Structures are given as structure tokens and as C-alpha cells.
């Protein structure tokens, strides 16, 4: 018979709406609206997984997000394989394919269950003790074992093909939780005209009204009222209703993170439909109506499949129309679980017994149970259970002692009371207050604009809950007091009673496995052992035993663990402490957090206007920050070495053309521009003539090099500043900082022009001949336009700022044209260049050529601890200046002390050996360790033009070591080097005019 545990008269699902799904390859039928858990239970399946440490058989414990046990894999296709999905949350759809986890070879016969027999080996702190030595065993024995045992489920091995959306939202009132309290608050806030967002984690709102059949609100059964209010709210323009949406994180200034699950319940989502949506909601006021979470009883062997929370059984019965057994026992310390027995009994399910550890529970539920003829064992405890893959019996005895009796059953419902869900309140930094009478942590003073209502605030009366929620919603919306709405609400059910910690049979002397934390397999005994071994704070107990550290974060277990530790320590619960609640409330996918920011959208890619030309001409690109830069242009048959060697030769023999567009550019304009430049750079600027350029060095206030670049003066009040490729944003920020906050009286404007100018460098003896036919209105002769000058004019019919400058040591020009013309001008220059045998060259050749000349690259020769003196740039410091940023820093004792690392050249004794960048430099490679390190290689290349390798290095006292022999130790032996000048080519610098 299909779905033998479905009860025709119970539940709210459409019975004519069957859905087929598979679990571990076996086909099952459920109903539309089922969760995987309710559908499996309808088929009599309780066993769904193996526990983490002991591999014990486990079944569903709950019917909601707090589920510790029923974690499964859901496989939609080869790439969509979600591990650790809670069967109690996953809705079924036609074709859903779920698999159990943490078992081999099969769920009912699991070799790992041997761990259960070897359990003394896995007691508390076993991670810290067992795997200590022998050291060699780590790699081959311990680590593979831990890796296999650690972590449930299997991560998908392909990229996530789904897309995820992200929304920012603002509202007046955000309500988290759509039970009686949340709906009341949202209704009142919406009626008062507020913009409201209501989020509920279930597919349908209603919260505990799903199973609390004794509730009546506004003259309707609670569930019906909830659906009516929900429909009402959903139709309003000022309300956004989000179901399947979890409020997972509460951040500063009332920002709450919500994750909305959009497709996991659908048969075949559209390919462009987001799987989940992250909401970042900024709310003026937040109403927390997050309810309470039922706790299980802690007693020996309380983890067999078929043992579950009383409220879960009620949910399966009253909402899903499924009974969790045919002969059900109840073990409780509170009143609410009695209602489960009454519901089941009225649906025709046999009740084996109600065991209540309290001596004399009172109330209509007790009377009703007796009237229905249920055996009520008050003052009794369950001290053990039987059954292998499913509970088959319980052992019961009086709390006061006496004979033990065995009662047969096929399910056991337990409840030790309710823990208010204060997670989000605590995340909001509100302090929790311990209520000693009811043994609960409740929200204390809020520090953000929020209010907690209903069960999460400790309220167990429905009438009061609805009244306080209406008031909270109304006030949060700014409603006036005389218009406070009212709703009649009452319930026949009781939520009082409960206990914390271990029950009978799981006391201090017991060696039984009475589970506190099901998911991490932590028992009452483990917690006691942690205390015995010296753990005093709950934070230590938690880490030693791992209690509460699984993916459920101890929602059902933390209070038990705390109570057992407190009892052992003989201290009140608040003194032992409560572990910190951290986001997320329930696990959140990486996809939801990442949103659209993956693949091509992970980071912007910047391309110059000449990018496509370079690509078409075979350039190999390298990433420089966000830029794609042409690295080298290999011709047929060339490897990188050959291409770079040819490019280097060609530039110095005729010319090369290089895309320098990525250089940062800042326009410094205003009557005080020169004064400002004086303060920002080490160099003097006041006397720099219009039309002239200068290499500028920028320091931080501490005296270390921050950036460099060539600056052209276009007018008395206008400088064209260039920065390093990656440096433009921070240099502009640095300049703005001083301009706005230290020198606000200076009349200067700063404008980023990096994206506005395309820059084409033409370098080499033929450079002038190449550009001359294209340039209009600029005299290119050496007299009219000497090295380090700038002119404005036209090239190829478009405006240009033409710089005569050189980063190669050759005669050179840098043509700035508006970016849109970059490609066209580049092609015109290229056409002229080809006539002269010029080549296009990339960043590698640029690096080699500048190193041949000893020109530094900030960030390569410097690392934030290099001064201009260290770098051989003392000449760039204006000697007569009375102030510039970094001037005082440069005079600090350590910066003028002898022995600083200074930039030098290195030549290897074997000219063919190219040093490794970053390699260390020592005076004596045979010195005993630790060998004193003198410095390191900053740049190193094969120089085709020099015919030998070249390197730049920072070496202690380097300027005094010219001609010294030093060593670069490498695994194959030390490389002998000679300290030289940093200039390897054309030492006199004649070629800039050559």
C-alpha cells in the first residue's frame, strides 16, 4: 500500500496530488506539499542517516530548520548535488533524488558503525588526544581517517551552474517569523501604513499554528486565521511577503540578511531563474517573532530512529496527515507533549504510554489523556530504549526508584520544554537575561531598534502573544496609542513545564550514551568528562566536546549541554555562560552570498583601446591589477625568451611601439597647482618651465617611496601627472586627502584622467622619424623639443599631448590621444613604424629595457620600506624645500642610519645565469646557519642588448659595496655575483638624444 502511514482524516495536503521521488535509489510516493521528511515518514521510513562519529542509525528528530539528524544529499543533476540538506526543510517535487550520507556500503549495514563499539576511543577531546603521536602516523593514518570521518555529505565536484540574485531593500518594519506573533505584528504595522517586510522560513506562514490545533484567533482556527491574514497582507502594496526566506544574520544598524529559496522545491526551474536570493534589508524597526525550539529528553539510547520531538510528530500528523508510528510512547517533562498523545489518539493511533518525569502534572490535557484511557506514568522516567534500526521498546521506571518495566512501541516522542529562539536578538548585540524560574535565556535590553514578541520573548500564552505583537507592530509603524488594534485569541493548549540537562539513567555515574548533541554525537558523559578534565567555561566545554559545533549549531542541544556542565561545576547556569550566537542562523549557500559576483562578473577586466589590435597580432597578455596588458608579441616559432630578445634588440636598433595606456593619469589644475605639487612630491616644481617634464617621486609621510611618474607642465596652472599602472586610485586618494584636509586653502582641482587618454610609446633611434609624418603643429627637433618636454598639437588629425621622454634610455615619445582615437592613431603609428623595421613590444621587454638603464619600478624595487636615498634617487629631492610630504620622515634616525638596504646592480660570474627574483643575498654561503641575509634580488632578466644577465637588488650598505663579490644561495649551490652600478647599458645616457 502506498503511503501506509498517511491518515486520511488528518492533515492539509491534497490527497489527490501525488508526487514521486527517490531515496537511496528506491522510488516512493508522497503528496504535493510534503517535505522529504514527511513523505518518507508517510512511507514508514525513519532511518535516513548515520551519525557523524559513531555511525549510529538515525532518523528525523524535528519537523523544521533545527533538524540535527536527517541530513541528506539532494542530486538534481551531475553538477547540482547539494550535501547536508535537511530532509525536514526540503520540499519534495516530482523526480526529487535524495541520498543518505555517512554510510558505507549501505544505510542499514554500515561498516563505520564499528566506531560505536570502539566508542571509548572517541570520547570527548579525542581529536586532541588520540591523534597526537607517533608523528609519522599523521600523514598515513590519522589525517585520512579524520578527513573521511569529518564532515557529512559530499561536496559537488563541478562548478555551480545556478545563478543567485541579490537585493537591497529598505522598510519601516521588518518582521522575522510568520507565526501568530509575526503575522499579528505585520498586520498591525501594515494597518498603520508602514512599509512592511515579513519573512518566514517555511513554504507557508503559520509557524506553530501548523500543529497547534487548540488555537483560535479572531473567531477562526489558528491555521485558517494565519492563511487569511497572509492573503490579506500579500495583496497590500505596502507589504512584501517572503516565504521560504530565513533571516540568518542581524548586523549593525538594523541591517538583516535574509536568504530566499526560490527553486529547490520546483520540478524544473527555468535556467535563468535564480536558485536563491540574498536580501540585505535595512529596517527602521525590526520585530523578532522567531518562536521557540523544542528540546529532546536526555536519557540512555535516546537517538534511535523513531525517537523524535513531540511537536514534530504533531506537525507530521496535523499538517502533513502522517503518523510517525502505530504504537507511540511519549516521554516528557512538560505539558505541550501531552497534546501530541491526544492528537494521535484521536486519529486512531495507539498510545503505548505517556511517561512524565514530574510527580504530579495537572491540567485539562492530563485529565483528557486519562479519560481517553491512555496509560499515564507520572513520576516515571525512560531509562533506555531497544531496537536496532528503529526503536521497538522503552524501559520505564519510577523516578523515585523501583522496578524497571519494558513497554513496546514503534515511536517515542520526547519533550523537555522549549528554548526561545533568541539567536537573532543575540546577534543584534542585545544582552540575554536568564530567567531562573523557567530556566530560560530571554531577550534583555535591546541595543538596536528592535522588539521581540511571542515565544522568542518567553511568552507562552497565545492571547498575550497576539496582543503584544499587535502592539509591537503598531508602535514600530509609529501608530498612535488610541488606535492600538485588538484581536481575540486563545488556545486550549499549555506550554509550561520542562527540564534542562540529563534525565534519570543518564546521571553522573552512568556510562550510557545519552545524547545531548545528535549531529556531533556528544553525550552527557562527554560533557561531564570535559568538566572533569578542567574545562570551566561553556566555551571550553564546547570546543573540547564539539557540542553545538555542528551545522545545526546546537539548536536543540545547547541548553542541555550548559545545564549538565553547570551541574557538574555546581554553579548557576548564567555563570557557566552561554556560547555566542553567530550568523548564520541556518547554513547559507556560498552561492547566495556571492550572488552575481562570479565568473566574468567576479572582477572587472580593464582593456585598453588597443587591446584588440594586440590580440590580433598574437600578443600574450598578463594581468596587471585589473588590466590586461600585452606581455610580448611572439612571432611564428618564437618562445617567450626569443620574442623578448628580438623585441629588446629591435627597440634599441630601430624602434618599438608600446601600449602605455594603463599608466595612471591625474590632472592637477589651479593657481596653486605648483605649490601643491611641491608638497606632494620630493622634487621642486615651481621653476619647472611650461612645456617641460620631470620625473617625480612621491613619499608617504614616513619617508618611504609611495609612487613615481613623469609629470609634464602644460601651463603655469596645469600639470599632467602620471602614476604607476596600479597606483592611480591610491595616489589620487592620497592627493585628495592632503588637499581637502591639510592644505584646504590651496586653490587646486584634481581630476582622474586615466581612462581619458590612450598612450602610445614610441621608443628607439627611429622614433622621431616614425611619428614625424603624423604630427602637425609641433616642432620635433632636439632644440625645439628636447628630452623631457611636452607639447600640445595634433597627430593624425586628433589632439595630442606629446611627451618626449624615455623609459628605455632611447630617444622616445609618448603620444597621448583621447582614448577613443587610441586604436586609429596606434594603427597609423604602426604603419609608419613598419617602414622603419619597428616592432610592437610588451611589458616584458619594457621591464628588461628599463632594468638595463637601472630605472626602478615602484612595488618591484620598492616594498614600502625604501627611501629615495636607498633607491639612488637622492637627486630627485629638492634640497631647498622647507616642506613636502615625507621630508621629516626621511630624517628619522633609522632612515639615516648606515647599513640600510640600498639599490645596486648585480652581475653573475657566469653571464648566462639569470638569478631568481626574490632570491636572498649573503656574504658567505658557507657561514653557519642562520646565515646573515644582506638583501634580495628585486629584478632579474636576460639582457640581449648587454649579452649577459642583469639584476637589481637591495643590499645592506650596497652603495659602499661596488665591486664586491657576494653570493645568492640556491638549492643547486650558491651563485657568485658582483655588485655593480644599476646602469648596465649606455651609462652616459647619450642615446636619449641619439
Amino acid at each position, binding site marked *: 500500500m502506498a503511503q501506509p502511514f498517511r491518515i486520511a482524516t488528518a492533515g492539509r495536503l491534497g490527497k489527490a496530488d501525488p508526487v514521486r521521488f527517490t531515496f537511496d535509489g528506491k522510488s516512493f510516493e508522497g503528496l504535493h506539499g510534503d517535505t522529504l521528511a514527511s513523505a518518507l515518514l508517510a512511507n514508514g521510513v525513519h532511518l535516513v542517516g548515520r551519525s557523524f562519529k559513531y555511525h549510529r542509525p538515525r532518523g528525523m528528530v524535528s519537523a523544521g530548520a533545527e533538524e540535527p539528524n536527517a541530513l541528506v544529499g539532494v542530486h538534481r543533476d551531475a553538477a547540482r548535488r547539494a550535501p547536508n540538506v535537511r530532509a525536514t526543510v526540503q520540499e519534495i517535487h516530482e523526480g526529487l533524488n535524495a541520498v543518505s550520507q555517512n554510510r558505507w556500503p549501505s544505510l542499514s549495514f554500515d561498516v563505520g558503525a564499528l566506531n560505536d563499539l570502539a566508542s571509548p576511543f572517541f570520547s570527548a577531546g579525542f581529536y586532541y588526544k588520540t591523534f597526537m603521536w607517533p608523528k609519522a602516523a599523521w600523514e598515513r593514518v590519522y589525517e585520512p581517517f579524520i578527513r573521511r570521518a569529518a564532515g557529512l555529505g559530499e561536496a559537488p565536484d563541478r562548478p555551480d551552474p545556478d545563478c543567485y540574485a541579490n537585493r537591497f531593500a529598505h522598510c519601516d518594519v521588518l518582521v522575522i517569523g510568520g507565526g501568530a506573533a509575526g503575522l499579528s505584528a505585520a498586520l498591525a504595522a501594515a494597518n498603520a501604513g508602514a512599509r512592511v517586510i515579513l519573512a518566514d522560513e517555511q513554504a507557508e506562514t503559520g509557524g506553530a499554528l501548523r500543529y497547534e490545533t487548540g488555537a483560535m484567533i479572531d473567531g477562526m482556527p489558528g491555521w485558517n486565521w494565519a492563511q487569511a491574514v497572509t492573503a490579506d497582507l500579500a495583496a497590500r502594496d505596502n507589504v512584501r511577503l517572503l516565504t521560504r526566506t530565513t533571516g540568518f544574520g542581524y548586523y549593525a544598524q538594523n541591517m538583516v540578511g535574509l536568504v530566499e529559496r526560490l527553486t529547490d522545491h520546483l520540478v524544473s526551474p527555468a535556467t535563468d531563474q535564480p536558485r536563491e536570493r540574498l536580501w540585505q534589508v535595512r529596517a527602521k524597526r525590526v520585530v523578532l517573532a522567531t518562536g521557540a525550539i523544542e528540546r529532546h529528553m536526555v536519557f540512555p539510547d535516546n537517538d534511535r530512529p523513531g525517537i523524535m520531538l513531540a511537536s514534530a510528530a504533531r506537525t507530521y500528523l496535523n499538517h502533513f496527515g502522517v503518523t510517525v508510528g502505530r504504537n507511540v510512547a511519549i516521554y516528557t517533562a512538560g505539558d505541550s507533549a501531552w497534546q501530541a498523545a491526544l492528537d494521535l489518539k484521536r486519529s486512531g493511533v495507539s498510545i503505548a504510554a505517556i511517561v512524565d518525569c514530574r510527580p504530579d502534572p495537572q491540567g485539562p490535557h492530563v485529565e483528557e489523556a486519562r479519560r481517553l484511557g491512555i496509560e499515564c506514568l507520572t513520576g516515571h522516567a525512560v531509562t533506555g530504549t531497544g531496537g536496532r534500526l528503529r526503536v521497538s521498546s522503552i524501559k520505564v521506571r519510577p523516578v523515585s526508584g523501583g522496578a524497571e518495566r519494558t513497554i513496546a512501541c514503534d515511536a517515542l516522542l520526547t519533550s523537555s520544554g522549549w528554548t526561545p529562539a533568541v539567536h537573532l536578538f543575540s546577534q543584534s548585540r542585545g544582552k540575554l537575561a536568564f530567567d531562573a524560574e523557567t530556566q530560560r535565556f530571554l531577550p534583555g535590553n535591546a541595543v538596536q531598534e528592535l522588539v521581540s514578541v511571542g515565544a522568542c520573548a518567553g511568552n507562552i500564552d497565545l492571547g498575550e502573544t497576539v496582543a503584544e505583537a499587535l502592539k509591537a507592530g503598531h508602535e514600530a509603524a509609529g501608530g498612535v496609542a488610541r488606535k492600538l488594534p485588538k484581536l481575540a485569541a486563545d488556545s486550549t493548549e499549555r506550554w509550561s513545564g520542562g527540564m534542562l540537562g540529563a534525565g534519570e539513567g543518564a546521571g553522573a555515574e552512568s556510562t550510557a550514551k545519552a545524547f545531548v548533541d545528535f549531529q556531533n554525537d556528544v553525550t552527557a558523559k562527554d560533557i561531564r568528562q570535559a568538566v572533569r578534565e578542567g574545562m570551566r567555561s561553556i566555551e571550553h566545554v564546547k570546543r573540547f566536546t564539539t557540542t553545538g559545533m555542528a551545522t545545526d549549531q546546537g539548536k536543540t542541544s545547547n541548553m542541555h549541554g550548559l545545564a549538565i556542565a553547570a551541574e557538574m561545576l555546581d554553579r548557576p547556569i548564567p555563570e557557566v555562560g552561554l556560547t555566542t550566537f553567530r550568523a548564520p542562523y541556518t547554513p547559507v549557500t556560498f552561492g547566495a552570498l556571492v550572488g552575481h559576483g562570479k565568473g566574468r562578473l567576479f572582477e572587472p577586466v580593464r582593456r585598453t583601446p588597443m587591446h584588440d589590435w594586440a590580440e590580433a597580432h598574437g600578443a600574450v597578455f598578463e594581468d596587471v591589477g585589473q588590466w590586461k596588458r600585452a606581455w610580448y608579441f611572439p612571432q611564428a616559432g618564437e618562445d617567450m625568451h626569443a620574442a623578448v630578445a628580438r623585441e629588446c634588440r629591435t627597440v634599441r636598433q630601430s624602434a618599438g611601439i608600446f601600449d602605455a595606456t594603463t599608466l595612471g593619469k591625474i590632472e592637477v589644475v589651479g593657481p596653486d597647482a605648483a605649490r601643491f605639487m611641491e608638497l606632494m612630491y620630493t622634487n621642486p616644481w615651481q621653476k619647472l618651465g611650461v612645456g617641460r617634464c620631470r620625473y617625480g617621486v612621491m613619499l608617504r609621510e614616513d619617508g618611504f617611496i609611495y609612487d613615481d611618474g613623469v609629470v609634464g607642465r602644460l601651463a603655469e596652472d596645469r600639470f599632467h601627472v602620471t602614476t604607476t599602472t596600479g597606483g592611480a586610485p591610491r595616489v589620487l586618494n592620497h592627493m585628495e586627502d592632503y588637499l581637502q584636509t*591639510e592644505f*584646504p586653502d590651496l586653490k587646486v582641482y584634481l581630476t582622474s584622467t586615466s581612462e581619458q587618454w590612450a598612450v602610445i610609446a614610441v621608443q628607439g633611434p627611429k622614433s622621431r622619424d616614425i611619428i614625424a609624418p603624423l604630427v602637425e603643429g609641433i616642432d620635433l627637433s632636439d632644440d625645439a623639443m628636447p628630452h623631457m618636454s611636452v607639447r600640445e598639437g595634433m597627430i593624425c588629425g586628433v589632439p595630442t599631448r606629446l611627451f618626449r621622454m624615455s623609459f628605455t634610455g632611447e630617444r622616445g615619445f609618448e603620444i597621448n590621444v583621447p582614448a577613443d582615437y587610441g586604436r586609429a592613431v596606434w594603427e597609423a603609428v604602426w604603419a609608419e613604424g613598419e617602414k622603419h623595421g619597428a616592432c610592437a613590444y610588451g611589458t616584458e621587454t619594457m621591464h628588461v629595457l628599463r632594468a638595463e638603464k637601472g630605472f626602478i619600478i615602484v612595488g618591484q624595487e620598492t616594498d614600502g620600506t625604501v627611501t629615495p636615498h636607498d633607491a639612488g634617487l637622492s637627486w630627485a629631492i629638492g634640497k631647498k624645500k622647507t616642506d613636502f610630504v615625507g621630508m621629516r620622515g626621511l630624517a628619522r634616525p633609522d632612515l639615516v642610519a648606515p647599513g640600510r638596504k640600498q639599490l645596486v646592480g648585480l652581475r653573475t660570474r657566469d653571464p648566462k645565469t639569470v638569478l631568481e627574483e626574490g632570491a636572498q643575498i649573503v656574504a658567505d654561503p658557507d657561514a653557519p646557519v642562520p646565515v646573515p641575509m644582506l638583501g634580495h634580488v628585486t629584478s632579474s632578466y636576460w639582457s640581449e642588448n648587454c649579452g649577459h644577465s642583469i639584476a637589481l637588488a637591495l643590499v645592506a650598505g650596497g652603495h659602499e659595496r661596488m665591486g664586491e663579490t657576494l653570493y645568492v644561495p640556491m638549492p643547486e649551490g650558491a651563485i657568485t655575483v658582483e655588485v655593480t652600478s644599476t646602469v648596465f647599458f649606455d651609462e652616459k645616457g647619450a642615446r636619449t638624444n641619439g
Partner: protein
Amino acid sequence: MLLIHCPYCEEGRPELEFRHAGEAHIARPENMAELSDEDFERFFFIRSNPKGIVYERWRHIHGCARFFNAARDTVSDRFLTTYKAGEPKPDLDGEGK
């Protein structure tokens, strides 16, 4: 994510638009050249880093691009006030927690 009131835009905007810029009200000495090592150390290296009210600089970098000052409680992460660069340090005794 914090919500920060830019005193120039006169709007509360998300933290994403801003960049923190260190402690506020540390004036760069005008007599840099004569500064003693001790005075330079005080100016450049020493920061108050209090538990409680901190005066700090922020830049509305993805907005108006202005630098401004803020008083923030480092315990609650709450902004007490923001004000324009150059305005005097507000007297907030007793406001922090």
C-alpha cells in the same frame, strides 16, 4: 554594514560607498622641518585606539568624494555624529556607553 551620514551629501548611505581614513583631529604640524623625533613620533605613529568614543575620518569615496569626520562608539559600533572636515571636535561627554 554600517549606514553612514555624509555631512556634505546630507544623506545616510551604506558603508560600501565610504572608506575609513584613520583617526581624526591629528593636524599635520606646520613646522615639519623643526619637528623633534619625539614630536614626529607623536604625530605620525601614536593613535588613541580607545574603547568608547573614537573620532575618525571617513571619505565618501563613491559619492561626493569628500573627507569628513565622525564620532563612533567602538563598543556599540554606533555613529554618534558626523561633521565636516575642519569643524571642531564635538563635545560628546557622556554620550558613549
